[in-house]
């Protein structure tokens, strides 16, 4: 990625997360869900999930997903050299899950995450919360809770940096695909 520019700093991002927390809270209320299980997608999704988990004061520990083993571009990019184990400390069977990610773009990451969650068990429902929902969807996936809908060009790329301080940066994609920029 070239020309990375700060798009929003921590002071601007943090209120968006608070908004997300409120929206999740009211969504849970409207659905009558009292004991959700929160799962963050590595790495940006986990940073956000930690904040949300704290704000919503959930009892069960936070789960983390590393979707490296579920990526659909494995045959094109090979094994990610930095793989961390997924960690779902509580069984997902019959649980209502809040899945948290930083940027929803093509939908492929969420597809992978859903597949992985279903390999752990059969949840009752899944709510998708993302900080950023941008254009460029390639799969029929939509978020339930969103912090921000930015206007972006096709070749622009938005990334969450963190964990402390959080920030959103925008860059222009170069032609050659790099390992980290594949799925969104």
């Amino acid at each position, binding site marked *: 990625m070239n020309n990375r520019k700060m798009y929003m700093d921590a002071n601007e991002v943090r209120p968006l997360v608070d908004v997300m927390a409120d929206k999740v809270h009211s969504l849970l209320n409207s659905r009558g869900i009292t004991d959700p299980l929160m799962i963050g997608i590595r790495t940006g999704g986990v940073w956000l999930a930690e904040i949300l988990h704290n704000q919503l004061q959930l009892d069960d520990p936070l789960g983390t997903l590393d979707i490296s*083993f579920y990526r659909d571009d494995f*045959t094109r990019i090979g094994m990610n050299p930095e793989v961390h184990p997924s*960690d779902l400390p509580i069984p997902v069977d019959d649980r209502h899950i809040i899945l948290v990610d930083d940027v929803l773009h093509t939908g492929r990451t969420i597809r992978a995450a859903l597949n992985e969650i279903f390999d*752990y068990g059969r949840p009752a429902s899944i709510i998708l919360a993302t900080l950023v929902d941008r254009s460029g969807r390639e799969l029929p996936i939509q978020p339930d809770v969103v912090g921000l809908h930015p206007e972006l060009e096709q070749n622009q790329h938005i990334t969450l940096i963190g964990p402390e301080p959080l920030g959103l940066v925008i860059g222009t994609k170069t032609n050659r695909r790099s390992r980290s920029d594949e799925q969104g």
Partner: protein
Amino acid sequence: MSFSNKTLQLDDEQRLLHFLTIDGLDRATLTEILDTAEGFTGVSERTIKKVPLCRGKVVANLFFETSTRTRTTFELAAKRLSADVLNLNISASATSKGETLLDTLRNLEAMHVDMFIVRHASSGTAHFIAQHADRGVGVINAGDGRHAHPTQAMLDMFTIRRHKGEFAGLRVAIVGDVLHSRVARSQILALNTLGVSEVRAVAPRTLLPSDARSLGVHVYHNMEEGIWDVDVIIMLRLQKERMQGALLPSEHEYFSLYGLTEKRLALADSEAIVMHPGPINRGVEMDSQVADGSKSVILQQVSYGIAIRMAVISKVIGTQNLRMQEVAG
């Protein structure tokens, strides 16, 4: 060796094209394998013990020597990656009909196999197959003669790291038939590459290579001195035929000199762990009390073997995919 291993095993960006030997791999590569395996450990504990990484790939277990345990863990590893697995016990079929190894290889390639996992009694077999395999086909060495058994060594490193955290400062004793052991050769290379402070080989001279020190070990002939204060004890398997070859007088004398007993184990560090690549000859290499005791991590080795093999299989298949893509692109 390093030169040829590097060019055969690694691509230009140091990614694994095959996994034939520890020789020529650097610390970063070994650590990356251990880290990836760490990521796979959880898969075995889930409801659905599978990830879709290698879906649609065909992995052939090409075993010219029978080994139920190693073959099974490779098979499980490949299946947990969603690959299809062919199990071929060649010793019985092809070679007895006069088919050459190369013929067997070509036949399997015609079935579009993506990976060969090879075990053979001759040192250098995995290298040979890697040299002759089609582009895009990865080869993993599951034990060749006395040469190498790199996945076994890596699962041992994984076990050590799980228990000891890091390798720096560790003293490791490898006890037994180093001369005939491909496991020991790979372990010694891996331990030294990962930076332990000392590797010891403990054995009578008939079970040591002619120039054992050149492998990177300190040689001990006395068990008590050899395991004194060590953090890890790796016991090697003793084959029965060593008695016939005039290498040892008897199992009895071997056990009395080199068998691991509770009493001897007390000489090692109080936190020491005991490992064995299996299967154990109880009463020959070690007492049952030791094998089943609190310091034994032998069963953990077996279960970690699956995660290590998943890591290696997926890395090699991933790199071979990239290579094919570069050719196509």
